[in-house]
């Protein structure tokens, strides 16, 4: 017995965040759960159409899950115990609802199956617990995207200028290396650089326009580094829908007419 795993019977118990539910037959569903110790893991839940657990089967819910299968590579079956529902919190606000959709879609898109991502799991729980604080949520979301990039091997290094080694006037991020670049270091390449607003480096009081700029930078690495590494799948449109919603929230013009999917 290690990490709650009973190897002989292929059985373990864990806690996790529900990412998605796909109907399977009349009363069952396939749950995609981001578990604490077992990473993103799917399993069949029987009786998923029951109204008693309908609220718990919304994306973002915390579940206590027990997984069991005859062989390790089988999809296996889940039994669940609801721990905390969050959909109600998110649904009260358009911005956080769009944010929840983005988080769930990006996790389902980016996480490998059955690989523990403990740090990212903890960061995601912290983010989701802030769903009823719409005022701080965009900043928390930005920090979460940075953590996601870091955890998946595309972290940004914003400590010093990639060109000069200095750490003053760092106002750009190199779109290729993900390293900070100073005003002086950028030189004639400045128009090709991505913005590095203070909020991205964890400085300042994080106004909305800075967070939007910072999300443009993280979005570049999600789209041009992470997505190609996953087989050139397009980044989920839920992220663009969240950015669009955030622009509307701030009263600024979105850069594209993003339609949610």
């Amino acid at each position, binding site marked *: 017995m290690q990490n709650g795993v009973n190897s002989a019977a292929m059985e373990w118990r864990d806690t996790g965040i529900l990412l998605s539910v796909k109907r399977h037959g009349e009363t069952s569903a396939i749950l995609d759960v981001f578990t604490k110790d077992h990473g993103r893991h799917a399993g069949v839940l029987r009786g998923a159409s029951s109204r008693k657990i309908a*609220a718990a089967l919304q994306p973002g819910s915390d579940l206590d899950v027990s997984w069991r299968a005859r062989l390790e590579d089988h999809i296996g079956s889940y039994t669940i115990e609801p721990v905390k529902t969050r959909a109600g919190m998110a649904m009260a606000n358009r911005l956080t*609802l769009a944010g929840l959709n983005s988080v769930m879609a990006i996790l389902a898109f980016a996480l490998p199956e059955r690989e523990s991502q403990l740090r990212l799991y903890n960061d995601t729980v912290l983010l989701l617990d802030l769903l009823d604080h719409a005022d701080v949520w965009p900043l928390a979301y930005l920090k979460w995207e940075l953590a996601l990039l870091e955890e998946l091997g595309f972290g940004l290094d914003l400590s010093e200028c990639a060109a000069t080694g200095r750490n003053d006037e760092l106002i750009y991020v190199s779109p290729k290396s993900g390293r900070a670049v100073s005003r002086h270091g950028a030189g004639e390449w400045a128009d090709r650089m991505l913005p590095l607003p203070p909020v991205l480096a964890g400085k300042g009081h994080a106004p909305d326009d800075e967070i939007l700029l910072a999300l443009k930078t993280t979005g570049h690495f999600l789209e041009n580094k992470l997505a190609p590494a996953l087989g050139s799948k397009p980044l989920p449109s839920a992220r663009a829908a969240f950015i669009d919603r955030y622009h509307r929230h701030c009263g600024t013009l979105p850069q594209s007419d993003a339609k949610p999917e």
Partner: protein
Amino acid sequence: MSGRNDIDALIDLMARLPGLGPRSARRAVLHLIRKRALLLTPLSDLMQTVAATARECLNCGNVGTGDICEICSNDARANGLLCVVEDVADLWAMERSGTFKGRYHVLGGTLSALDSIGPDELRIPKLIDRVTSEEITEVILALNATVDGQTTAHYIADQLEGRVALSSLAQGVPIGGELDYLDDGTISAALTARKRL
């Protein structure tokens, strides 16, 4: 022997219906055969008729036997209210309540990031056309209290904001519901939407 095969085929088809499995399908087919004149023949005739005539209403997406459904062709229901639902089953549920006297619009699903269902896969453009062409004064978004349902409601609200009054169904304690058995999200929504007595 071929007769037995037809019956087996009928059982197989019946077993695909919602709520039925192979055993219950066998019982249903046996019952139909025993009540041939009373049930089987009229059922068979009606199924042929419905198969030939059933179609989606071109206006609202409801299922009827004509191009325009009974609700859309009833002038008494053109009272300026338009209730937007996800599915025909939801429309029928609203009709069962007998409370709503306006017209409906069936979206045919909800937006879903994970299933790649966007606005163009639903009947949202048609909804926007109807709001103008039918002189709608209020759109009631009667979508499910799920993440996808509410995401869809917010998207439609964005498209129609400023053009028509918008409302949504209340969320909270169901009739017969006990607080102890409700999830925290429902209790929170009910508390936020509390009303003065």
